[in-house]
């Protein structure tokens, strides 16, 4: 064997140990998707805190593994597998809920409690999508996990799919976060279509001031009520209200500050990156992923429409009318859907400030989607 043959042989062996040898079109497509996410986050400012970790995770997850080396989230013993443990076993979402609780101000909801119903109405999207997924041939567990995309709450969607349909986790998480980033694009046409100019101009009364004592008691009472009626929601609701109690009780400022800054940032990085890394082409580019994306869009649209229409329905009985635009904030997506209500409202009346009113159904939507997830989990995981 000559030197040339020897070198060619070695070069071919070297090529086989690189990722190029097993690179497929699917991987290239997914790497492009990851890069689009990163572009949208950096250039267009679409949910950058989520899309940058997810986008980079997608790129990492689609570098083909070398045979015999445990590298991806699906390989036993790989480092990525250990990081993915928090997603697979539903550890990260409750920790994110703790941080969300420590950030959330429930006082607008406490000052105008009837707006909580808008958060409940938006959950129609969850259950209608659940039924749609059943009709399309998904199993009840898979349909439940897909339906929760309509709750517009990434951690809830990941938590429920990790419990009910781990095989769809990547697609569901990507769909949920993508549509959450697209809330400013999806919601306004639906809101405008379902409301009249006069309805969009409705000005709501300023809400009353809520005392510190009320804000301290609410997370305790709220937790008891919600978990007694839907015990399946104990993990998510428990962490949400616990975080809120840390914030409101005035004696645990350090814990609340850690939960809403450092801790939630660390968990968001791990969650986003691992979810992205789980979207390797062989697992992600399937017919069911396309269906999940279609159903996710339907879930968001139905949830938005339900909130707006329910606000109009409530107006039939109320003396002080509600601006129906804030019904769209019933899909959680905190605080983007509330911001959208404010922006659409200001297009009709630049002096109308709906943001604080919209925050009430917005945070009620978080509670509502966690309860919906609890019901689906407790009924389907039997």
């Amino acid at each position, binding site marked *: 064997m000559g030197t040339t043959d020897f070198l060619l042989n070695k070069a071919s062996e070297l090529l086989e140990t690189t990722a190029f040898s097993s690179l497929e079109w699917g991987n290239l497509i997914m790497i492009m998707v990851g890069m689009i996410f990163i572009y949208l986050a950096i250039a267009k400012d679409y949910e950058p805190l989520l899309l940058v970790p997810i986008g980079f995770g997608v790129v990492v997850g689609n570098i083909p593994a070398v045979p015999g080396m445990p590298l991806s989230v699906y390989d036993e013993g790989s480092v990525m597998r250990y990081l993915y443990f928090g997603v697979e076993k539903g550890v990260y979402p409750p920790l994110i809920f703790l941080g969300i609780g420590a950030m959330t101000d429930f006082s607008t909801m*406490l000052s105008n409690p009837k707006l909580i119903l808008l958060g409940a109405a938006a959950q129609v999207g969850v*259950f209608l999508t*659940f*039924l749609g997924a059943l*009709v399309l041939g998904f199993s009840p567990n898979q349909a439940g996990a897909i339906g929760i995309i309509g709750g517009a709450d990434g951690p809830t969607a990941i938590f429920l799919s990790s419990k009910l349909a781990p095989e769809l986790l990547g697609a569901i998480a990507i769909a949920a976060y993508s549509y959450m980033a697209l809330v400013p694009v999806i919601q306004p046409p639906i809101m405008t279509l379902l409301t009249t100019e006069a309805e969009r101009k409705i000005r709501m009364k300023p809400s009353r001031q809520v005392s510190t*004592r*009320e804000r301290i008691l609410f997370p305790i009472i709220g937790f008891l009520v919600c978990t007694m009626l*839907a015990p399946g929601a104990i993990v998510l609701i428990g962490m949400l209200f616990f975080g809120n109690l840390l914030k409101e009780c005035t004696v645990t400022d350090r814990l609340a500050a850690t939960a809403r800054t450092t801790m939630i940032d660390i968990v968001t990085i791990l969650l986003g990156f691992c979810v992205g890394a789980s979207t390797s082409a062989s697992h992600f580019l399937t017919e069911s992923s396309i269906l999940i994306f279609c159903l996710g869009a339907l879930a968001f649209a139905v949830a938005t429409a339900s909130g707006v229409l329910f606000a109009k329905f409530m107006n039939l009985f109320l003396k002080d009318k509600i601006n129906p635009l804030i019904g769209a904030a019933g899909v959680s997506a905190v605080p983007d859907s509330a911001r959208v209500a404010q922006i659409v409202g200001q297009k009709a009346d630049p002096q109308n400030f709906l943001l604080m009113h919209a925050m009430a159904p917005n945070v009620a939507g978080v509670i509502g989607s966690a309860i*919906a997830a609890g019901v689906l989990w407790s009924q389907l995981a039997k």
Partner: protein
Amino acid sequence: MMFALIGEVSSSRFAPLFEETGIPLAIMGMLVVFLALTVLILIISAFPFAMGLLDRWLPVSHHHAGKAKSKSKPITNETVAHDGEIPPHILAIIAAAVFEMEEGPVRIVRTRQLTTSELAWTLEGRIRHHASHRLQTRNR
């Protein structure tokens, strides 16, 4: 025969809806969500009344207030007129600002002090406004 086949396919497709984990579960789920949140509404609506009773039996003690306020300047009547009211010189500034922005005669019907949560939104707005003026580095 073709109609029978279509009927069979559609009935098999929609069959999962009529099982226990179909429409009945969806209806039950919506009921639980509405029930839980309605109970919350009732409890929250009773808060003002309950707080009134609680304040009578268990008055609020400001045992953490002393530490926080020790270094702050004493509040004078010039800064805050009465609880929740806005002092006249601040009102004059608000009126001038509104006149300037609206470019015409205006009548201010009502003013009120912002609550802590509202101030948080104002602060967020300010941060965003300042963040929008990023300094561009120029390559010369």
